[in-house]
């Protein structure tokens, strides 16, 4: 039995917006094993990013965070910035969606990498430079020595994201969180970056959390998939169990997400199966299942009481009173 690298238990994040309480993350628990890939899937506002930012300690002060998140047994929640700095960068790192906004436009790419190295390790400037160029090579940037001296605006979107990954990998973290890291990129560049991440994962024995709205990405690259809706996990299973012709999707929201993905096999002009409405107002969540107002199969019990997230089959958790049969919506 391997010890979990990251263990999150009953994580709760509550913001106060205009005096009203927003439960952005509401009792989320999951584990990430060393070297594995977990995809957290959900729409805008589902709480997937807030969840990971809470773990990284990147939420604004004054946010109420409850529960526990342990990295190799050490509690992360409630640590001061100074204490967190021991973990951030060296044990866990994060890559964000928009590399153009994450990089400092007035600073040469190379210096932004050496800065990350020298923040965490006592090395000379010269050594840090050598390491930075090695990192640029590691993320497959051609002519690394020249790129080292270039500014972010001189790099393409894909190159910038590679620089961001180089910075995140500067101290060889054991856990890398990629928050929509390929969403802003072209599909061919996305494929290149995902290949790169998986190769590096193997090379560095690193665990990966992919935060995305794209179930297709999860199916192609993740070991484990976790679907969030309105701050809660609604379904979690190994990717192999969830997708494909034998797919065993149970929760109707996951099914809806899967059906809405543009499909090459679908004939042109075919009407897409859609669910109406929008995610609920986070300040006024319904008492029952959050998805019930949009769910075609919702019954009285769904509105009355929220289903708990239970492990109904080995490794497969879902929260639904009336799950799909054999993965097909009835």
């Amino acid at each position: 039995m391997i010890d979990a690298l990251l263990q999150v238990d009953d994580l709760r994040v509550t913001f106060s917006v205009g005096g009203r309480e927003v439960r952005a993350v509401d009792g989320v628990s999951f584990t990430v094993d060393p070297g594995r890939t977990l995809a957290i899937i959900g729409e805008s506002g589902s709480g997937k990013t807030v969840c990971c930012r809470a773990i990284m300690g990147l939420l604004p002060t004054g946010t109420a965070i409850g529960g526990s998140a342990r990295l190799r047994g050490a509690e992360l929640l409630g640590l001061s910035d100074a204490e967190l700095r021991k973990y951030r960068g060296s044990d866990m790192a994060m890559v964000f969606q928009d590399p153009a906004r994450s990089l400092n436009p007035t600073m040469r790419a190379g210096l932004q990498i050496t800065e990350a190295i020298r923040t965490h390790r006592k090395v000379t400037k010269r050594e840090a430079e050598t390491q930075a160029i090695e990192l640029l090579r590691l993320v497959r940037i051609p002519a690394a020595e020249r790129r080292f001296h270039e500014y972010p605006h001189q790099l393409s979107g894909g190159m910038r994201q590679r620089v961001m990954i180089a910075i995140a990998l500067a101290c060889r973290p054991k856990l890398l969180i990629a928050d929509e890291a390929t969403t802003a990129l072209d599909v061919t560049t996305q494929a290149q970056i995902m290949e790169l991440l998986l190769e590096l994962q193997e090379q560095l024995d690193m665990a990966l959390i992919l935060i995305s709205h794209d179930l297709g990405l999860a199916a192609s690259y993740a070991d484990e998939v976790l679907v969030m809706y309105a701050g809660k996990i609604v379904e979690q299973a190994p990717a192999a169990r969830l997708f494909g012709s034998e797919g065993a999707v149970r929760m109707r929201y996951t099914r809806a997400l899967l059906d809405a993905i543009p499909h090459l096999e679908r004939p042109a002009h075919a009407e897409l199966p859609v669910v109406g409405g929008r995610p609920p107002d986070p300040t006024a969540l319904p008492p029952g299942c959050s998805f019930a107002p949009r769910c075609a199969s919702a019954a009285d019990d769904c509105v009355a009481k929220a289903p708990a997230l239970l492990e109904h089959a080995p490794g497969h958790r879902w929260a639904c009173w009336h799950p799909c049969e054999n993965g097909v919506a009835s």
Partner: protein
Amino acid sequence: MSGKHSMNASGGQAAGEPLLSVRDVVQEFVVRQRGTPSRFISGGGGAKAGVVQAVSGVSFDVMPGETLGIVGETGSGKSTLARALLQAPRPKSGQVVFRGTDLTRLRGHKLLQARRHMQFVFQDPFSSLDPKWRARSIVEEPLIAYRTGDRPARRKRVDELLDLVGLDPARYAKRHPRELSGGQAQRVAIARALALSPSLIICDEAVSSLDVLIQAQVLNLFEKLRGEFGLSYLFIAHDLALVKQVSDRVAVMYLGKLCEVGPGDAVYREPLHPYTRALLDSIPSTEPGAKRTAATLKGEPPSPIDPPSGCRFRTRCPRAVEQCALEEPKPRELAPGHLVACHFPLSQPAPAITGAVPAKETVL
């Protein structure tokens, strides 16, 4: 100009006059030493002055009631092409014949009148809609601009339009864009585009910024409107799966040129251009068996300031040989309505010596 050298086959559509006929459209921009847009700087580092060949001789037709999808990556020139059709800015050369009139020859009032039947829906409704205006005024504006009806008639039309795109006028007409969700704001943008009863709607990444469930709702709305009003669409996006789903025909664009045009199913099932194949292989699949065919395309697109000689895709093409560098491939119709600009299309065996022919700058 028409005939076999243009990608203008109508793909088995009923014979008749095309609604939009685009011939050899060229759009170029001069960039100066300073302030060069970063994405146009070639691998050599440092800015250089030159001419960005954003769109280089693109030809196609859109028939009445037809949806033509244009797919391409960032920098392929697909958005520049869309704007060139609107004459904003006017293309450097070529013809844009819309409902029998060449828009490139019109100016002023005549251009405005000719263009009212061609409307645009952009990617981000929050930047294309004026944040200070209410939904009602946004939808009403084109009616005022074209002096359509009096105030009560216009208001009635606005309510109809909002209703048509699935927004209850009583609830949404008075809202500002910021009081709407992304999907609702995009519906307002669509209502505005429909106000003047256009015959062609150009959608430039119109659903790309929406969540997948909302995206499906908006796509269904586009389909409903197509059926009700016999609309034609020019549907531009970077996502081939999305484009294929809504389009009768699909055109693939790379570095300012069309490399393949054909019926959607044929392009997907029997792609002829190696670039189309690479795009198809890059789409994440929800079939675990079809998992990861390893990144098929290496490197990045070359600079449109200094595009490769011959075939523009040759620097990244796994099948490229010397001929590809020397001679530009002309579009050929290999199956009914299915055209490709490639010396060695995928329907034929690969040439003897394979491997990308490097661009000039890397030969040094």
